[in-house]
């Protein structure tokens, strides 16, 4: 427990770490060349491995009546294909489906690490991972936009034809900044901030609960402060499961929306 050493149970009401980054930065375990491998990187590879394993074992055999596990994997795949791909992108969605599927499953596993016992750390709460994924999305929809619409993509964004002439510079500037700069940023920050907030709340509440309840022999009835923290922490725990799934879905959905807006640029 990170908090245990520095918590003053006799005077404080809740245990707060000295520095927030203590909860998110892990010491280097070993180094390969210039790469310092810490717990976060190991969890990242574990997440990728779990995704591959789920897809391999879920879809290994095509059965007439799939097993329960196979049916759930097929359900998730169908969800990405129909609700995200087909409904948003439309007829061209097949081309982008592998990316969307990989993204959705990786984020789902990575986010659910937050509430997995013994792991308890969402890898997406480190900005590097959501930002890298958002950059990949950014390059995909930029390349699609420029290859489908040539330079009209840039010119029509900066000088929108559908807006009255007087407003065009203003709307064009807003659109330009929004499409070319803010999109990847908000995409990454949304996921990162949600997962960071969730991890922070869970660690503070459940950590305080454990520390206070464990200190009952020393400080007596005062340790019962831990009970409301435990109750609130359990409620947030359930809430975080929903948030994890929802954020994976929203990231995939927004990726699809951005790609769609690059393909059908006219409106």
């Amino acid at each position, binding site marked *: 427990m990170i908090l245990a050493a520095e918590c003053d149970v006799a005077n404080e009401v809740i245990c707060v770490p000295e520095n927030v980054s203590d909860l998110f930065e892990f010491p280097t375990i070993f180094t390969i060349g210039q790469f310092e491998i810490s717990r976060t990187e190991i969890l990242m590879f574990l997440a990728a491995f779990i995704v591959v394993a789920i897809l391999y074992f879920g879809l290994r055999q095509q059965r007439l009546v799939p097993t329960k596990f196979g049916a759930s994997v097929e359900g998730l795949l169908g969800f990405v294909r129909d609700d995200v791909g087909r*409904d948003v992108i439309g007829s061209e969605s097949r081309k982008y489906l592998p990316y969307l599927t990989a993204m959705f499953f990786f984020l789902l596993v990575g986010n659910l690490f937050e509430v997995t016992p013994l792991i308890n750390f969402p890898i997406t709460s480190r900005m590097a991972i959501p930002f890298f994924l958002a950059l990949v999305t950014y390059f995909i929809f930029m390349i699609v936009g420029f290859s489908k619409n040539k330079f009209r993509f840039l010119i029509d964004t900066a000088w929108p034809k559908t807006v009255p002439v007087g407003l065009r510079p203003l709307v064009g500037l807003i659109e330009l900044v929004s499409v070319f700069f803010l999109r990847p940023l908000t995409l990454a920050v949304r996921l990162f901030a949600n997962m960071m*907030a969730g991890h922070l709340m869970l660690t503070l509440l459940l950590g305080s609960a454990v520390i206070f309840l464990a200190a009952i022999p020393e400080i007596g009835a005062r340790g019962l402060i831990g009970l409301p923290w435990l109750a609130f922490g359990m409620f947030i725990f359930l809430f975080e499961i929903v948030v994890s799934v929802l954020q994976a879905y929203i990231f995939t959905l927004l990726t699809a929306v951005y790609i769609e807006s690059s393909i059908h640029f006219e409106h």
Partner: protein
Amino acid sequence: MEGNIEALSGALALIGYGLGAIGPGIGIGIVAGNAITAMARQPEMQGTIRTTMFLGIAFTEALALIGFVLFFIA
């Protein structure tokens, strides 16, 4: 003096985040409320409406989340 400013900046960040959360709070309320109205009127359109609702919430929420991150950075 140094300590005072240090203490103040934390409190200011807290107030700033509180102010920043007002707008998105109202916005998400409007989005979700209208989505419920639409679903009640046309239950057969539920899937489309839900997707659009999450999209709207995601766009509205971004401002509040940026405020939240700034609160920790400050």
